[in-house]
């Protein structure tokens, strides 16, 4: 196959081996009627950027395009000679891209090329070459500015001055060379570890101290160059293996057993990071670099409980600032809403932090406020996130926020926002009825607690009723109401009138009967049973099963049987 040369590539090689002047351009000295167009020569001073250079090269290699452009882009506006010259340049550059074909000398071959290129015969082709020779038109055309679009110059390299770009390029070459040497070193060390022999001498592979020293120096140099070239971030592969900071760690590579099930084809950077993690965990190392390593792995796999626990151990061993860790955690949590390892980590942080601030009311209250503000933020993304709510109830217990007006207000706002948010209702129940100020310990959630003040029970009953009136078929409200009645030791019958308001003409025929809430009817059935009115209770349950909540027919039938059972 002939080597294909694309205009873009020729520019690329031009960039990699910079030469002062583009070699493919020549000025046109011909017999042409029009004076040959001279492309505007950009100042080749220090301020020229790489992209400017590419543009000027491109223009210089297309002198006739510039002429055409001056004439408004219409070929007909040019003289016949110029028209032909323009055409000849196009054809010749196409032929130049197919060197093997263009070099055909046979008549048949030449004819084929001519047809291919311009639809003419061998005679036309001859004309083309004549014009090209006479005008010394460039055969290879430099790429245009689309180089930027294709991302040829990455990270803003196109805007660098030529001199800087060349210096940068040299550094890249140096890093590549060092990486190759480092790779060789690591291969040798690996062969040493496996007890291989040198191929030529059949001697045991031994890595000398000198080699290790060289490698250390090499890594330092590479790391410095990389930092200079790419800033903090580094390339994907070999991040740790070539980082001098990790030089002393021998990664623990795990090989999956043969035929391992559900084996994951780990990306190289993940596998490498895990190998280093195993090594430092085994050595029980706690350090800044371990902390960074856990962050690196957590970014790739936030569900890795082992890494999270190790991170916590590092934070505590290094006695790092808990608020700093919490701030870091907030960012991770927002990026991984569904993850729950995050919340246990937070739990551990609070367990550790609390004793240090327990005696300082102002720090305590500002910490509580910050936590609440973050919880509100994350719940605004995912209002029913189970792990967030579980953590929230833990936090309330730990910091004793039961009586905190802000906490209750925040929950009320969430219920106002979506009155069907059962997580918010559950949290409210916890806030009110687990408050150690008046709750007695040891009672199950569905048992009456004699110590809860009547005023609190009344308030909660009113609250639930008010919300139920908004959406009578909302089970959250009814479950809450029933829960409050039981906890407060009230008779269910105390809300008979209220519940009855959602059920009309029960059993009075299809027309008269209307149910606005199946949960009201359910509660009424219990109330009637409580009052010993089995008949009405039975009717309520029957109608639930027959019409209003048919999917639960089996349950309603069982409830009917409960009415018969000896109390």
């Amino acid at each position, binding site marked *: 196959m002939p080597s294909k040369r694309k205009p873009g590539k020729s520019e690329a090689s031009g960039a990699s081996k910079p030469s002062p002047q583009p070699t493919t351009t020549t000025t046109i000295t011909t017999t042409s009627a029009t004076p040959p167009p001279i492309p505007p020569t950009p100042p080749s001073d220090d301020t020229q950027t790489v992209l400017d250079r590419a543009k000027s090269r491109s223009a210089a290699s297309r002198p006739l395009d510039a002429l055409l452009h001056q004439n408004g882009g219409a070929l007909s506006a040019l003289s016949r000679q110029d028209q032909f010259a323009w055409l000849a340049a196009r054809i010749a550059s196409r032929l130049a891209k197919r060197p093997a074909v263009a070099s055909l000398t046979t008549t048949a071959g030449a004819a084929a090329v001519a047809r291919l290129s311009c639809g003419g015969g061998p005679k036309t082709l001859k004309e083309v070459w004549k014009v090209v020779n006479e005008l010394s038109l460039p055969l290879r055309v430099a790429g245009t500015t689309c180089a930027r679009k294709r991302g040829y110059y990455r990270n803003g390299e196109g805007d660098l001055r030529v001199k800087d770009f060349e210096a940068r390029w040299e550094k890249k070459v140096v890093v590549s060379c060092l990486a190759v040497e480092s790779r060789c070193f690591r291969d040798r060390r690996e062969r040493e570890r496996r007890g291989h022999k040198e191929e030529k001498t059949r001697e045991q592979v031994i890595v000398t101290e000198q080699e290790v020293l060289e490698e250390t120096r090499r890594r330092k140099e590479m790391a410095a160059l990389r930092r200079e070239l790419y800033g903090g971030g580094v390339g994907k592969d070999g991040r740790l293996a070539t980082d001098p900071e990790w030089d002393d760690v021998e990664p623990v590579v*795990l090989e*999956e*057993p*043969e*035929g*391992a*099930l*559900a*084996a*994951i*084809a*780990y*990306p190289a950077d*993940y596998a490498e990071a895990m190998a280093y993690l195993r090594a430092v*965990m*085994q050595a029980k190392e706690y350090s800044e670099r371990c902390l960074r390593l856990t962050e690196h792995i957590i970014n790739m*796999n936030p*569900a*890795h*409980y*082992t890494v999270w*626990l190790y991170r*916590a151990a590092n934070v505590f061993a290094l006695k790092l600032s808990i608020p700093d860790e919490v701030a870091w955690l907030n960012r991770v949590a927002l990026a991984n809403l569904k993850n729950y390892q995050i919340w246990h980590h937070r739990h*551990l942080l609070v367990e550790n932090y609390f004793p240090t601030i327990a005696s300082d009311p102002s720090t305590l209250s500002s910490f509580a406020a910050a936590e609440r503000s973050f919880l509100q933020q994350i719940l605004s993304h995912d*209002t*029913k996130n*189970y792990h967030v709510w*579980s953590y929230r*109830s833990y936090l309330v217990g730990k910091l004793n926020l039961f009586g905190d007006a802000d906490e209750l207000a925040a929950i009320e706002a969430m219920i106002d926002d979506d009155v*069907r*948010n*059962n*997580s918010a209702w*559950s949290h409210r129940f916890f806030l009110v*009825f687990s408050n150690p100020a008046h709750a007695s310990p040891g009672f*199950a*959630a*569905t*048992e009456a607690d004699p110590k809860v003040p009547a005023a609190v029970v009344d308030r909660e009953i009113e609250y639930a009723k008010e919300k139920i009136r908004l959406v009578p078929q909302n*089970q959250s409200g009814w*479950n809450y109401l029933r*829960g409050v009645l039981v906890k407060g030791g009230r008779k269910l019958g105390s809300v008979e009138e209220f519940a009855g308001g959602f059920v009309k003409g029960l059993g009075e025929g299809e027309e008269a009967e209307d*149910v*606005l809430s199946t949960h009201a009817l*359910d509660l009424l059935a219990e109330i009637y049973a409580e009052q010993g009115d089995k008949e009405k209770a039975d009717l309520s349950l029957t109608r639930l099963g*027959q*019409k*209003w*909540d*048919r*999917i*639960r*027919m*089996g*349950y309603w*039938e*069982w409830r009917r*049987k409960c009415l*018969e*059972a000896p109390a």
Partner: protein
Amino acid sequence: MRQKGVAFPWRKMATQQRRPPAPPSPAHLSPDSETVDEEIIPNRRQPGLMIPDLFTQLPPVRDVLVTETSQVQDETVELCLPLLSGESEELQYNEHGVPPLDRERHVKFLHQCLGQLPGRFVAADASRPWFLYWCLSALTMLGEDVTPYRQSLAATARSMQNDTGGFGGGGRQLSHMATTYAVVLSLALVGGDETYEVVDRKAMWRWLCSLKQPDGGFQVCLGGEEDIRGAYCAAVIISLLRLPLELAPESLAYTGDGSVNLLTGVGDYVRRCQTFEGGISGQPNAEAHGAYAFCALGCLALLDHPGRSIWSYLDVPRLIAWLSSRQYAPEGGFSGRTNKLVDGCYSHWVGGCFPLIEACLNSTSGGCGAPAADDPAIAAASSKRLPPADESLFNREGLIRYILCCCQDQTKRGGLRDKPGKMSDAYHSCYVLSGLSSAQHQWVLDEPEPEATQQQLKGQAEGLVPEKTAGEGTLSSSPLSSLPGGEAVWAVLPYLDGLRIFDNTDRVRPIHPVYAIPQQSVRAMREYFRARPGF
């Protein structure tokens, strides 16, 4: 192949029994109700399909106020309705408007999930044992032979085991209760003595002791959270491996006087997780959640005969009310919490609670059995007697419709899913099929011998009396091993009441209501370790 229009004898029988005034149109059965406002309206677009309007219409009681919850709920119903009412062109419906179980594609999907997973599965690096369990369990339910995986599973499991006991999510990861549970169940699923021998039981026992907390619960891993999953997984592991209940002195819960063993206080821990709604939360003071309800019941069913233990520690009527509320119409599937959406996985987490609840209700010793808790309030509560559950407490037809119409991936990918519009995955494939299995079968629990078990319980707590095994007839050679609930003898039958809306070939294999693997796998593993006293 699909059989259409075949009259099965029991269906005819059931129809005659339940509906004496033979209705003109083929009627949908509803137990114990002679007048039901339910019609099977011939579907306009798909004439001839017999689908009760319960599954093709919006529920009769709906509120006007729109909130985020009602919006996503309405969207979900909108996605499900066409599939449920026989209108989807991708589905091949039988005369009941139910598509077949696409075994072939699901099997292929599951085998694939057991093979090499691509790099994007890196987020599952800490839960690979779950993939093993989900796939092997689902394949088993689909009738596949999983014994060819014996060797590779044993090798994989070995690579995940820690010298300090238990299995991690992968090599050199901390041992975790959930991953250990998944590995042990996987080993039981493929079976074989050599496979069982992978487990280092002594180290496992020590490790479990180190996770036991003074409040009765278990941490999920050293330094990890304490929740009800930990309690359920621990009970399953102890029971399957027949580990001793004694506590190692290193344990946080160790008292030195022998009054506390591995399972002391577990029941009370579970009790603290019941919420005011009646459901169970993951840890005390959180929201009631379907997955934890199953963990709670499974755990209690292992502590003692479910006819006693569930009664002793839970407010059963409230729990049943809450569980039953999880089923929605027209979707037919279960949700995991109040005002949340249906999701195929709750077919197991919630659906799987019903066999245990039914066992509890149907046990004659149940309601009046001696309470295990010393709390007078609970004793009083359990003295009230509840009627047995003769009929199904949940709507089996609805659940089966949801699973077969809405949870099967319709592309060539195969596998089962959360709901229409979601991708299938191994997790949902397993738990949707488990739910299908519990909807298609019924479990009956043998009665315990009240006195013997009481003595045994007492004896076990004191570490003195050899355990007597109900049903299996032999004495255990290990004095302090295993749980009485693990000895409960369950019998399974296909559920035949009412109308069968799916083809008989679509019945999946039954799984044990507590261990969620086939009964013979449970028996084989427990038998193996019975013969190995001590470590």
